[in-house]
């Protein structure tokens, strides 16, 4: 095959929806990096400011401006992988130009190494292999599952496999009724955003359905960037049609005609799976024009990010899709009225959409009943770190944390005890001591000044230096801070320095005051969730591990 | 401008023709860019692929001097597509039927054969402009500095009249004035046909008014234009008072100018620098400059604004008003006993109907656009809201004419001239401001890369540019801004006196020189 020219690539993409990212990826795939000439041509072709394009490209971790670029190995040094020897692996691969990358979402089976469009996993440089992402273990509690119910069926990722256990039946049923009825069904189920924010899904769909302006858009937020979270990956890899069906349902309910699945860069295999599933759904008449023979059109495109945690924040994601600098937008207005291209837009997480597909098939009451007590439904938990059986678990909301850790996942490794866990990946900070007595629902966890969020839980056993764990976490936030708002941009840096011990007071009280003052202002004044959540790390560290903090400050002298 | 600058942010269709606004009126251009950012469509007609062209939704690269053909073609399309604003035509204009009949012969295909712009683009531009809710036209010297400058302006006026894109917010026909007070100079009566405030010298009432004001009989004859005066130096014209103009360099046909000046018995020049023109003077009078002067100036939107002195002038330099008053006194004329700029301006206001409602103190903050016909009047940011100066807008039946000189075997290339962002006019000011040289240290001839090759030139090398009147040497710059067969340079640099070559013809009405079109030959040196 001939290598396409710059102009051919630009011509291929420039009239597509949201063309910038796929166009840059096309160049990246062709050359391994984005040259000055490429950027000049792209800026001209898409009529963008060259300065802005240059700035935006440098924002993304994985866009390389120089060779070998994409071809060089990038090794995950996220919080779990750094416990598993990521830094030794980077050293071992240094001769190949290896660099570190933030958590790449393989915490259940570390350590991922990205090379070109392949992900290798392995703990040492001679054991690296390409492997499909692990299926969730069979539900150890015997509780009824929602999104995982059929995921372990063979061939589930194909259209036929999906249809075998009732796939697209929910959609077919919904298409026979009015869109309002579907929205009401979702509202009645009590489904709330499973990406972390917990906003009632039915209300969001209704807001978009009611908002003036067309075309409307459905965005599936598959930018699963939270360290310790890998649940969306398993859904998309093994049950992609459930996500697609969820998006089509959202489109039908809201009147949207276009959709994007915004996938994080670090899941290249997932992109192929999704592309294939999308093609299948198109051929089966579930996507495109006149879906189900009705006057219902929905076009779905997969768009791949380029390495920026902040793009999991919905307004950054929208800016990224639009080819703009991926800073979060000021809210209000919210995406439901001013989303993609300033038009009404649903942004839902992968798990939320897959749940919606199940609800459309099995009903609101069924979903309601899956939770414990008053809680509705289930939540996927990505469990990793110092735990015997890491992996994805679908828990009934309200399940005690201890049940998950000890009974379902086998507890700490032999001879160890659990010292602490994180919540919401890293964003919820640490729970330890009495904090470990929570149940897995927002009210319980929030009572301990944390939150469940996207459902990533990283376990630290009693060997671990929690100041170091906190430093790894804060460094991640500093690395991923977009730089727009002052408290987050400066605060994450200053907290990292204080946790690393290379700046800040040498006297404990002053250290604690500075860290507390930084945290308080970040929490109150930051413009988005990143800066608000990051200080939960230091807050919980100081609360649960004052002696470790004291030792750290003393050692820095 | 028919409309104020603030209106530049309001059109939904913008038609820029013969204006390199981002370089020549950059601050005005920022307002157009805001309209574009809000979604306005931009139509740009210019022989050169200027920055505005890069921003355009449709770019019409016409051959130099063929504007009338393009605009007739557009008028034809608007008529043919039934996009004429019937209500506006009926209520506000005259001669529309004759005009609509007249343009039937000028198809876009005919226009293409003359101006070289693809017919489909002419159609697109015409349709967008005609369908605009608020369509605005902007132009500059690329329209007026032609032998058919008046025809060009009338063609634009025809387009605005037939679509009703005038007299409303965000519309209009908007020439951008090139100099800080060129508007004010005309307002103040420095015109051979008008007293201050555009009162015709051949109007007996105006004559009587000024005879009374100036205390002597006034000739009812119009004076001659500067262009004619230069032609008559040494004959009718024997003495000249030249205030702050480097006539020799900025005017076309430099040899002719120099010859004319040398034929005079007496030249007095007021200026701030020893210009090429001042070098020929019998008396040179040092004037104060910007930043040293109190006074009044009027911008392109007819806004009357105050100038204030910040620093003292060098040595014995004096304000223009003082020098001219002294000169008037010494001629024995009455009415030159001024002691301040304020007194001078207030006298002007008392004699000018367009300034009748203002005085020096009232314009402190610059909020008045003339006409301000009486005290208490708020000024007139927008012209032609209810009627035109003559009542109804008159369609003019314009026809295309070739430029004064067209390309030939001997001179096969079109030269067009203009300004650059970093230099102003003949660089008496920008050339003496530090740092400008860092960005623009010399003039160069912009040549299409294919022509650079075809003509055996080298990018960065030297070329000889020859026309019927002479030749200059100039460095070559290869750039896609120039289309094939057309080259560009500015007249700003004294060492590349390009106005040696220009000026074969003048508009018969305004006597504006055809500086924008000049057939030349380009050879490697």
């Amino acid at each position, binding site marked *: 095959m001939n290598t396409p020219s710059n102009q051919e690539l630009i011509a291929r993409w420039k009239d597509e929806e949201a063309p910038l990212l796929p166009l840059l990826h096309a160049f990246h795939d062709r050359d391994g990096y984005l040259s000055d000439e490429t950027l000049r041509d792209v800026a001209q072709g898409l009529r963008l400011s*060259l*300065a802005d394009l240059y700035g935006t490209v440098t924002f993304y971790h994985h866009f390389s401006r120089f060779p070998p670029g994409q071809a060089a190995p990038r090794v995950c040094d996220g919080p779990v992988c750094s416990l598993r020897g990521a830094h030794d692996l980077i050293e071992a691969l240094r001769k190949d130009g290896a660099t570190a990358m933030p958590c790449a979402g393989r915490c259940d089976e570390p350590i991922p190494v990205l090379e070109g469009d392949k992900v290798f996993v392995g703990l040492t440089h001679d054991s690296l292999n390409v492997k499909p992402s692990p299926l969730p273990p069979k539900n150890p509690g015997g509780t009824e599952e929602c999104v995982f119910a059929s995921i372990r069926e063979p061939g589930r990722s194909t259209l036929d496999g999906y249809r075998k256990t009732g796939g697209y039946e929910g959609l077919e049923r919904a298409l026979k009724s009015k869109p309002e009825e579907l929205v009401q069904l979702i509202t009645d189920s009590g489904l709330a955003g499973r990406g972390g924010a917990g906003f009632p899904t039915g209300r969001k769909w209704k807001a978009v359905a009611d908002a003036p302006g067309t075309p409307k858009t459905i965005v599936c937020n598959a930018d699963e960037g939270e360290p310790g979270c890998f649940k969306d990956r398993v859904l998309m890899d093994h049950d992609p049609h459930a996500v697609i069906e969820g998006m089509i349902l959202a489109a039908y309910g809201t009147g949207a005609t276009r959709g994007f699945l915004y996938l994080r860069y670090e899941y290249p295999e997932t992109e192929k799976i999704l592309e294939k599933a999308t093609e299948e759904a198109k051929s089966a008449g579930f996507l495109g024009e006149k879906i189900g023979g009705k006057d219902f059109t929905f076009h779905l495109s997969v768009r791949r990010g380029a390495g920026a945690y902040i793009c999991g924040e919905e307004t950054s994601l929208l800016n990224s899709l639009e080819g703009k*600098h991926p800073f979060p937008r000021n809210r*209000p207005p919210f995406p439901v009225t001013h989303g993609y291209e300033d038009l009404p837009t649903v942004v839902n997480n992968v798990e939320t959409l897959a749940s919606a597909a199940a609800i459309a098939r099995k009903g609101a009451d069924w979903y309601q009943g899956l939770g414990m007590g008053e809680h509705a439904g289930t939540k996927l938990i990505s469990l990793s770190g110092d735990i015997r059986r890491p992996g994805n678990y679908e828990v009934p909301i309200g399940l005690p944390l201890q049940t998950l850790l000890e009974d379902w996942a086998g507890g700490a490794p032999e001879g160890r005890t659990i010292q602490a866990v994180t919540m919401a990946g890293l964003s919820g900070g640490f729970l330890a001591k009495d904090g470990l007595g929570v149940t897995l629902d927002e009210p319980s966890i929030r009572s301990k000044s944390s939150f469940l969020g996207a459902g990533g839980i990283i376990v630290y056993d009693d060997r671990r230096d929690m100041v170091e764990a906190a430093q790894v976490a804060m460094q991640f936030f*500093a*690395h*991923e801070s977009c730089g727009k*708002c*002052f408290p987050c941009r*400066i605060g994450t*840096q200053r907290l990292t320095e204080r946790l690393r011990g290379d*700046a*800040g007071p040498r006297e404990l009280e002053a250290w604690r005051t500075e860290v507390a003052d930084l945290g308080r*202002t970040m929490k109150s*004044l930051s413009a988005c969730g990143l800066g608000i959540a990051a200080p939960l790390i230091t807050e919980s560290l100081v609360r649960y591990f004052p002696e470790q903090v004291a030792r750290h400050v003393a050692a820095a002298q | 401008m028919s409309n104020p600058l603030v209106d530049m942010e309001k059109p939904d269709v913008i038609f820029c023709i013969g204006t390199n606004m981002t370089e020549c009126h950059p*601050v005005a251009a*920022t307002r157009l860019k805001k309209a574009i950012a809000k979604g306005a469509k931009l139509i740009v007609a210019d022989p050169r692929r200027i920055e505005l062209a890069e921003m355009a939704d449709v770019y019409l690269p016409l051959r130099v001097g063929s504007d009338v053909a393009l605009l007739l073609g557009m008028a034809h399309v608007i008529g043919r597509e039934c996009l004429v604003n019937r209500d506006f035509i009926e209520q506000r204009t005259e001669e529309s039927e004759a005009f609509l009949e007249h343009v039937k012969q000028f198809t876009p295909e005919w226009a293409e054969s003359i101006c070289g712009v693809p017919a489909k683009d002419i159609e697109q531009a015409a349709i967008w402009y005609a369908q605009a809710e608020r369509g605005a036209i902007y132009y500059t010297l690329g329209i007026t500095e032609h032998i058919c400058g008046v025809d060009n302006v009338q063609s634009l006026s025809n387009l605005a009249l037939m679509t009703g894109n005038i007299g409303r917010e965000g519309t209009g026909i908007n020439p*951008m004035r090139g*100099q*800080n007070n*060129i508007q*004010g100079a005309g307002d103040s*009566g*420095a015109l051979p046909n008008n007293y201050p405030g555009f009162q015709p010298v051949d109007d007996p009432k105006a004559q009587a008014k000024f005879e009374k004001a100036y205390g*002597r009989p*006034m*000739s009812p004859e119009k004076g001659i234009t500067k262009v004619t*005066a230069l032609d008559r130096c040494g004959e009718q*014209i024997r*003495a000249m008072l030249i*205030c*702050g103009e480097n*006539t020799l360099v900025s005017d*076309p046909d430099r040899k002719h100018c120099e010859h004319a000046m040398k034929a005079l*018995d007496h030249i*007095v020049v007021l200026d*701030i620098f*020893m210009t090429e023109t*001042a070098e020929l003077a*019998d008396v*040179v009078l*040092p004037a104060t400059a910007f930043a040293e*002067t109190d006074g009044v*100036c*009027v911008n392109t939107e007819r806004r009357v*604004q105050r100038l204030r002195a*910040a*620093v003292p002038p060098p*040595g*014995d330099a004096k304000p223009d008003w003082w020098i001219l008053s002294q000169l008037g006194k010494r001629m024995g004329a009455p009415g030159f006993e001024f002691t301040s700029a304020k007194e001078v301006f207030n006298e002007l206001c008392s004699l000018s109907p367009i300034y009748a409602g203002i005085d020096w103190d009232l314009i402190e903050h610059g909020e008045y656009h003339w006409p301000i016909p009486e005290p208490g009047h708020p000024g007139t940011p927008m012209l032609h809201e209810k009627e035109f100066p003559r009542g109804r807008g008159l369609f003019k039946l314009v026809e295309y004419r070739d430029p004064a000189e067209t390309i030939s075997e001997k001179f096969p290339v079109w030269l067009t001239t203009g300004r650059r*962002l*970093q230099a*102003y006019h003949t660089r008496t*000011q920008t050339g*003496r*401001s530090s*740092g400008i040289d860092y*960005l623009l240290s010399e003039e160069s001839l912009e040549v299409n890369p294919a022509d650079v090759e075809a003509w055996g030139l080298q990018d960065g090398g030297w070329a000889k540019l020859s026309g019927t009147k002479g030749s200059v040497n100039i460095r070559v710059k290869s750039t896609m801004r120039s289309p094939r067969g057309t080259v560009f340079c500015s007249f700003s640099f004294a060492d590349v006196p390009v106005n040696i070559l220009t000026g074969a013809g003048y508009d018969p009405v305004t006597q*504006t*020189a055809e500086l924008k079109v000049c057939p030349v030959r380009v050879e490697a040196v």
Partner: protein
Amino acid sequence: MATIENSTQTLTLTMNGTEVTFSPGETLYEVAQRHVDRDVPTLCYDERLEAFGACRLCVVEVEGIRNPVASCTTKATAGMVVKTHTDGLEAHRRTLLEMVASENREIDVDPLSGYASQEMKTLVDRYEARTGRFQGKQSGKSRPDDPNPFIKRDYDLCISCYRCVRVCAEQEGDYAISVANRGFETQITTEFGGFLKDSACTFCGQCIQTCPTGALADHKALRSKDVPGEVKKTRTICPYCGVGCSVDLMSKGDKLVGVLPAMDGPANLGALCIKGQFAYDFVQHSERLSTPLVRGDDGVLRPASWDEALDRAAQGFKDAAANHGEDSIYAIASGRAPNEAAYLTQKFIRATFGTSQVDNCSRA
């Protein structure tokens, strides 16, 4: 929007305990500017630009909303209960300013740096934030190697407020300045991080005038940093094209040291171009004519007194009139000089000779 047309209903909210009115679409910051005695502090706000919400200094408390909100990006709604200067907000602002101060090499910069250059210093002093807390790495990498003579690029003083990026895009429409990297590594830059001359920059100077720290500063004006005396400002109009931009000339004693755009200039609203911003020093150029000159018998121009020069000038015109008639004298007025010059030029011809042998330079 029926509510805008139906203006009978006055919109009000409560700010610091007082009921205040507002218009639809106004932000809380705009309302506070009108109604609150003490300024609501900000570093990323420029009223000509879209509110950005970066610095978070303008946060206010709104009843019913848990965290303080940025007043610059929050629209006022009827019935809101807003507090702008609680102890808690003031403490956050002080902490924020301590944080901002900690990333900069210096807080005090010469006022000649630019129109807004004292904003950061003023706030740091108002909040007594020079505590030296939060020390650590400094952000921004300066470009002393950029040889352009107009815009100093001292990014060590940059606080990433993005005003320069936004003014270049929104106000100027040039899109020359952008932002590279992210987080603490954020760097204000141009295409490929090069020199301004090689970018889309037109040197209009708007970035230096909106910069609140002097990171982008007026190189030319700063040459007069050590000239003694206070800076005096004089409002006048730019001497170049016909747009008529208002400028505030900066002078120290008799020396013209720089130009500031007039933010309230009716034709330009603070915008300028390279010529208006930077090409002013021709005024005090050594080649200025400073004395009248008359041509001697030897054919050479020599200095003369005003009396001699004016007599000589007048005599020449008298001679021409006597020998060749009153229509043999012609005057050309300048489109560059004030109205008074043009007016008196025509009056000179008309009142002295009774003809209209006068024109201006608009025909070429």
